[in-house]
């Protein structure tokens, strides 16, 4: 199976849960080093060649046994079975730690920082949007905010292009109900600030807004300096690593309440409909509480 087949797998994996009654998944042997563990329960593994399947690279993987997430730590060398189902799902099973000596030296963002829990207040770091305007998450006070992370040069259709395409769908749906539209906001943050300048982000955003720049009033495309970006990513549990001009990353979507607290996280298992419903629900429930109603909307 080629690399492109693997990359195509995640499209289906997001929507389908393996039931175990389908054809037996293919199994490959994976060996590599754990670089990070995302808040959404994926482990980021820099792995060796997987003969007959894909070359060496760094990729996020789901694990079937949640206990693994408690055991592995960044820096660990692991061996595992990479399972690839016919329906497109892929995941790791039988994860074994073969060497723990790298733990001490692993420079993991996840180890050094605190990933926000549900209910925690999001950090109020400055961001720069597609128009070059500086803003902060607190500027969205009073609105439910759905945010995610991408980089515009991402070539994997099941990662960033999928995220932006599905956000575009949510944006279009919300535009049909002005009440919800005015109480919600979408935010796409690039983790490639070197390349994704405001001008690049504007061009990227317009492609997903059908060239209608008025859509930026409801959907911002932003970035910030590398230090602030890392802090924000760590807070939301996003893992990303740059290698050879490519960025390996986990997929993370975060819903913030109109008060700026974390309401929910998603990684790979979501649909645009689920995100949209949660966003609308968050906006409506908050609007019915006196404190939210009293909160001002700056944007």
């Amino acid at each position, binding site marked *: 199976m080629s690399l492109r087949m693997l990359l195509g797998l995640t*499209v289906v994996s997001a929507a389908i849960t393996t039931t175990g009654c389908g054809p037996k998944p293919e199994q490959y042997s994976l060996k590599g080093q754990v670089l990070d563990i995302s808040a959404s329960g994926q482990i980021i593994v820099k792995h060796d060649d997987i003969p007959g399947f894909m070359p060496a690279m760094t990729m996020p993987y789901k694990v079937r046994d949640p206990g693994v997430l408690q055991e592995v730590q960044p820096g660990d060398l692991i061996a595992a079975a990479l399972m690839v189902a016919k329906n497109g799902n892929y995941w790791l099973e039988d994860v074994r730690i073969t060497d723990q000596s790298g733990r001490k030296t692993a420079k993991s963002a996840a180890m050094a920082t605190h990933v926000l829990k549900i209910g925690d207040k999001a950090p109020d770091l400055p961001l720069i949007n597609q128009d070059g305007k500086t803003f902060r998450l607190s500027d969205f006070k009073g609105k439910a905010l759905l945010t995610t992370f991408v980089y*515009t040069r991402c*070539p*994997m259709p099941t990662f960033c*292009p999928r995220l932006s395409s599905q956000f575009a769908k949510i944006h279009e749906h919300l535009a049909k109900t002005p009440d919800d539209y005015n109480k919600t906001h979408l935010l796409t943050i690039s983790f490639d600030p070197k390349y994704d300048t405001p001008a690049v982000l504007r061009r990227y955003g317009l492609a997903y807004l059908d060239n209608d720049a008025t859509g930026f009033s409801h959907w911002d495309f932003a970035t910030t300096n590398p230090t602030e970006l890392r802090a924000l990513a760590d807070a939301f549990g996003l893992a990303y690593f740059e290698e050879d001009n490519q960025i390996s990353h986990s997929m993370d979507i975060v819903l913030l309440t109109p008060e700026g607290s974390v309401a929910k996280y998603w990684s790979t298992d979501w649909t645009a409909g689920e995100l949209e419903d949660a966003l609308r629900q968050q906006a409506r429930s908050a609007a019915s509480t006196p404190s939210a109603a009293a909160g001002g909307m700056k944007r």
Partner: protein
Amino acid sequence: MRRCSGGACLLCAASVLLAACSQMGFGLSGAELHGAQLFDLHCADCHDETNPDLKKQPPKLKGLFRSKLLPSGSPATDQQVRKTIIEGFGTMPAFDQRLRDQDVDDLVKYLHVLK
């Protein structure tokens, strides 16, 4: 029912063999073969597959240069295809700084023979 004569059968077999060889990369120049590998790695996920979660389905690229215009409406020239690969177009990501000049050249060469 029509039957295949001996000669016609040989011709059929030769055609099938030629098609198979072409599929496997025989008959391609070194540059085209390299372009084919790059296409498989970087382009085929979007341009050969169907990704229903994408906002716009990327166009198939077989016979790209047969038409005078690219799917974007721009002239189907090497220069324009190079520009599209490097800068991206619409929702297509840019490959700027991710492919070397020679890679882009080879990719364009392969797109000329992709049928």
